[in-house]
């Protein structure tokens, strides 16, 4: 009995074993299909993630091309290679390929390159970023939001002035010469917006720390203030009187609370002085102008402490005129120093 039973049991084990193997095989096929689908998605994710990482790399270094070779991006689940090609001066083509357990995917993305600017968008010819200030407009000054680069085209026009809240607007409206503020929305052209000076504070600090920034020495200044082709960044943190035949300046000028900009000397000599660009008064308004000086660009005054009191007293026949082209000189000057890089936006994707 023992031997025959052993034979039967052995036979049974073999039969059951074969059945079990068949069942496992079917399960394996099901699992393989799921794994195939998961791997394909994972590979696609890898390729897309590599494009995102490459964009971040390009934003840090817009000239990065990895010597025209595919750039290997290593991620948790695998490696993707991205080839960066120039389509034209401001368009790039990224071809990202990823492979995962035999699943290959390719994603092609077209990017458009935009130059970043260190200077935020200008919102008015004259921006008052504090809500704790007094405002007096003496003389025959004018603040004009119409673009002086193309006065006939109102599409680029801005308000003459912008303030952070309605109370601030009322402060300016209480001034007897409020009608000297021109721009969009009628006269007096004063817009209200939730303004934040901290962006400019950061900009000022970054520029102040840069060795390419020029600090104007105190007293009478007879040097240059940039040119159309080479606008500069100028800091004034003590009393400065522009004198000695200076007629024009280009770029960005920052007058700190300790500074005091007096244009009367230059104006006495030239009849008028024009600064083409952006003038920022930080923590105070110390601006004296007699004659007909013109700030052709934009003016900002503010403090990173919104409770800081600023006494704004415009005297003489100072003109503050918005000029988009002149704001461009300020951007050029600041961007040359700070090198803000570029932004890349995806235009279209083929996957």
């Amino acid at each position, binding site marked *: 009995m023992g031997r025959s*039973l052993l034979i039967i049991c052995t036979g049974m084990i073999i*039969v059951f074993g074969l059945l079990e193997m068949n069942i496992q095989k*079917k399960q394996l096929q099901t699992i393989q*299909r799921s794994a195939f689908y998961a791997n394909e998605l994972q590979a696609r994710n890898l390729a897309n993630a590599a494009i995102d990482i490459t964009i971040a790399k390009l934003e840090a270094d817009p000239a990065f091309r990895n010597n025209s070779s595919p750039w290997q991006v290593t991620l948790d689940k695998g490696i993707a290679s991205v080839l960066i090609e120039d389509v034209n001066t401001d368009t790039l083509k990224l071809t990202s390929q990823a492979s995962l357990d035999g699943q290959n995917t390719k994603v092609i993305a077209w990017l458009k390159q935009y130059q970043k600017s260190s200077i935020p968008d200008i919102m008015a010819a004259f921006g008052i970023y504090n809500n704790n200030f007094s405002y007096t407009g003496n003389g025959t000054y004018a603040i004009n939001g119409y673009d002086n680069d193309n006065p006939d085209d109102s599409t680029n026009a801005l308000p003459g002035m912008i303030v952070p809240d309605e109370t601030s607007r009322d402060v300016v409206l209480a001034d007897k010469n409020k009608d000297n503020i021109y721009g969009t929305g009628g006269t007096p052209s004063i817009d209200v917006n939730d303004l934040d000076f901290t962006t400019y504070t950061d900009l000022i600090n970054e520029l102040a720390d840069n060795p390419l920034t020029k600090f104007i020495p105190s007293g009478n200044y007879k040097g240059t203030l940039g040119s159309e082709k080479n606008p500069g960044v100028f800091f004034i943190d003590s009393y400065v009187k522009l004198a000695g035949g200076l007629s024009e300046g280009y770029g960005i000028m920052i007058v700190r609370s300790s500074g005091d900009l007096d244009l009367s000397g230059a104006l006495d000599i030239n009849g008028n002085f024009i600064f083409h660009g952006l003038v920022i008064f930080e923590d105070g308004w110390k601006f004296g102008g007699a004659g007909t000086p013109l700030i052709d660009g934009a003016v900002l005054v503010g403090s990173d402490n919104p409770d800081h009191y600023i006494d704004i007293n415009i005297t003489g026949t100072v003109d503050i005129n918005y000029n988009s082209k002149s704001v461009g000189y300020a951007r050029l000057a600041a961007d040359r120093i700070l090198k803000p890089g570029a932004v890349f936006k995806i235009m*279209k*994707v083929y996957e």
Partner: protein
Amino acid sequence: MNISTIMSFAIGAILLLAVFSTNSRVVLNSSDVTIDQIIKENINNVAEVVSYDFRKMGYGVTGAAIVSANKNEITFKSDLGNDGTVNLVTWKFNPTQSVPESVNPNDFMLTRIVDGVTTDINMVVVKFDITLLDNANNVVLNTLNAKKIKVEVVCQGAEPIDGKYNETAWQKVFQPWNIQ
């Protein structure tokens, strides 16, 4: 015949009965699994082609990418072959047109039309629903506001098992780059 031989036959008979019983169950289960696999294979094939087309929606297109859409049909433009030619792609599920060669009474005709060339997708599809969504996942009817497209596909087995048709569902929300 001694007692041990009789016992061996008895045990052998019991074991054989057990094997036959198990085998019949495995065979039944196996056909169930096989049909299930076929359904999954079918839905996988549908999903693959749908994904291929929908991912490229709006690629190389200037202006509106989605021409028209409703619950069972969508027409959009895309340069499918990345060859500079914009194709007009239509996915259409007709719940009134049954598939003649199918035993299953629930499946209907799913067709893919690219530039007028029609391909019938005979994968025992019983449901093919399209829903247009905006960025906040709200359902929208205006194709210009659509930023995502939800596709739901249900496939059934061609043959019934114990009078019932097995089914598998696939659902995906596409957010094509080119319509953002």
